[in-house]
């Protein structure tokens, strides 16, 4: 790469590290201005949707769990929600609360992974988590302890922490014993303290001064910070049913990429922690809101680099919410509602750790899947990530190639794209000329 003195250049960075999946980013600078920014994804994305056609509706939670090793619960529970909507199955409040507890476990392990092992090295001048662990083992140990607590919840409720096996349409195969759930109290109390320490730690990082103009989209659940369902709302006044949202959010193929790019009413938007926090922070429990305030977060966060602080605040929330659910736990009996197929179409939405996840299925009278649509957070966020990249490049044209590439990688990691969810192996490149 050449330096800023040249007004025409192409910057390419292949393989942005610490992003789930593989993809490439290409930036073209012409006559001193950025003429093109593209986040390219290579692998055909929709095999899972094709795989699901012809399978029985009861299989969807286990099959879609394999889309992502980091957020399998998100896929399982969103699939369940969509299938239950299609078949008219109503789950009990106890089942729903147990699902929310399981989801808290996934948030804790996923956010701990991202904050400590993937994102924090960006702010501490470390190449990766290994270097950070060798420099500050106590800090990384705290992150791993948080992750273990998340895994413990997933194992206790879901049977195992990677691709849990206890989830089914209608509920669970078996309800955990009350004593098993009660045993989560002490680890969760410790985890909440560790999460609070995490907020204090990341609040001290140096953040570039960025004020982006985002169109936020998140779920709104009655009286609670949304995780396991709700209505899609936006920062510009949208408030619709999941079904209506699925009609408004249109995914399109872009020639350079095999992942779909989503637009809402024709425009880009952002889901994920920044959106959730900015739209729903007033629904956080006191302990999380106080942590956010002490960390210097306003009611809305539009600096993508501070997403690490928001994730830490959400860690506090997930631990606190987990404690509430543990305290209130009563084993659902039966563990699952009867799941009888009927022809229909159903839509399910939940808040995966990285943002809004939508599943939509059409099933026939035998319960076989006729059509499947899965819209992961990353395909919804991709256009906004590209807009962030354009801003970063425009503000960093004087940087040398390595520094600009690093800044671009950071811009991508801010949103923690799970590109393997969107396309299954993204290889990130940045180019400039």
């Amino acid at each position, binding site marked *: 790469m050449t330096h800023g003195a040249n007004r025409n250049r192409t910057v390419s960075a292949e393989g942005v590290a610490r992003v*789930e999946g*593989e993809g490439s980013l290409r930036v073209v600078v012409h006559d001193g201005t950025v003429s093109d920014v593209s986040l390219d994804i290579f692998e055909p994305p929709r*095999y899972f949707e094709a*795989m699901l056609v012809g399978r029985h509706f009861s299989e969807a939670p286990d*099959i879609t769990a394999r889309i992502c*090793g980091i957020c399998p619960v998100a896929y399982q529970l969103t699939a369940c929600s969509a299938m239950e909507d299609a078949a008219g199955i109503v789950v009990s409040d106890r089942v729903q609360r147990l699902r929310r507890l399981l989801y808290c476990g996934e948030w804790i392990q996923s956010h701990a992974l991202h904050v400590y092992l*993937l994102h924090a090295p960006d702010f501490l001048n470390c190449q990766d988590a290994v270097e950070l662990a*060798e420099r500050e083992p106590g800090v990384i140990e705290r992150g791993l302890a948080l992750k273990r607590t998340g895994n413990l919840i997933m194992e206790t409720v879901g049977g195992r922490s990677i691709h849990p096996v206890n989830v089914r349409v209608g509920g669970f195969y078996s309800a955990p014993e009350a004593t098993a759930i009660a045993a989560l109290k002490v680890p969760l109390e410790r985890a909440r303290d560790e999460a609070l320490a995490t907020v204090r730690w990341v609040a001290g990082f140096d953040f570039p001064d960025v004020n982006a103009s985002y169109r936020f989209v998140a779920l709104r659940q009655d009286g609670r910070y949304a995780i396991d369902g709700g209505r899609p709302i936006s920062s510009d006044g949208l408030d619709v049913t999941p079904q209506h949202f699925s009609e408004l959010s249109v995914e399109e193929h872009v020639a350079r990429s095999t992942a779909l790019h989503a637009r809402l009413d024709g425009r880009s938007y952002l889901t994920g922690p920044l959106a959730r926090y900015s739209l729903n922070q007033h629904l956080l429990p006191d302990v999380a809101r106080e942590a956010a305030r002490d960390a210097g977060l306003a009611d809305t966060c539009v600096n993508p680099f501070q997403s690490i602080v928001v994730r830490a605040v959400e860690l506090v929330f997930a631990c606190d919410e987990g404690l509430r659910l543990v305290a209130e736990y009563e084993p659902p009996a039966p563990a699952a509602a009867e799941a009888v197929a009927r022809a229909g179409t159903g839509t399910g939405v939940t808040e995966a750790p990285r943002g809004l996840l939508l599943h939509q299925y059409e099933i026939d009278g035998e319960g076989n899947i006729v059509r499947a649509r899965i819209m992961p957070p990353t395909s919804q966020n991709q256009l906004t990530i590209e807009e962030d990249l354009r801003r970063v490049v425009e503000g960093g044209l004087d940087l040398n190639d390595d520094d600009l590439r690093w800044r671009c990688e950071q811009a991508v990691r801010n949103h923690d794209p799970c590109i393997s969810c969107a396309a299954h192996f*993204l290889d990130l490149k940045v180019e400039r000329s």
Partner: protein
Amino acid sequence: MSARDIVVAGLGNVYRGDDAIGPMVAGLLAMTSCSVRDVGPLAEPLDLLGRFDGADLAVVIDAVRSGAPSGSVHVLDVDLASSSDGELDQAGVTSTHGIGLVGVLRLATAVGRAPRRMVLVAVEGTVFELGATMSDEVRAAVPKALQAVTALIEGNEQCA
């Protein structure tokens, strides 16, 4: 020695043809042997963190592509003392999120949670497309891979 001291982990995606070999072998082993703990299937080496802490022996089973004939079985010690940024450093990485086996071992060592010994049992594969079935060559290598893991476990028990 305690059965809890041996951890077996299968890395891979069961819906990706030969990539299913790791979870398959680990699962078979867990069904037939009571002296190991199957912590898989795992999607990434990073998933080992928190699951192999302090184990006496951690055996990781995964599919690889090294150019050897399909179905070949490799047994490789993951050893920080002799490893550099070579092939093993990226072993098991399926995304740029990932840290390779050596990186995970380094990280676990830094926080005092590494197993005493970590061994990779790698099966050469050729078919990794989503939705594909396992190739005949890799399917035929299952007994050999099982044998390799069993030998490691028995050797470890004799040393204990």
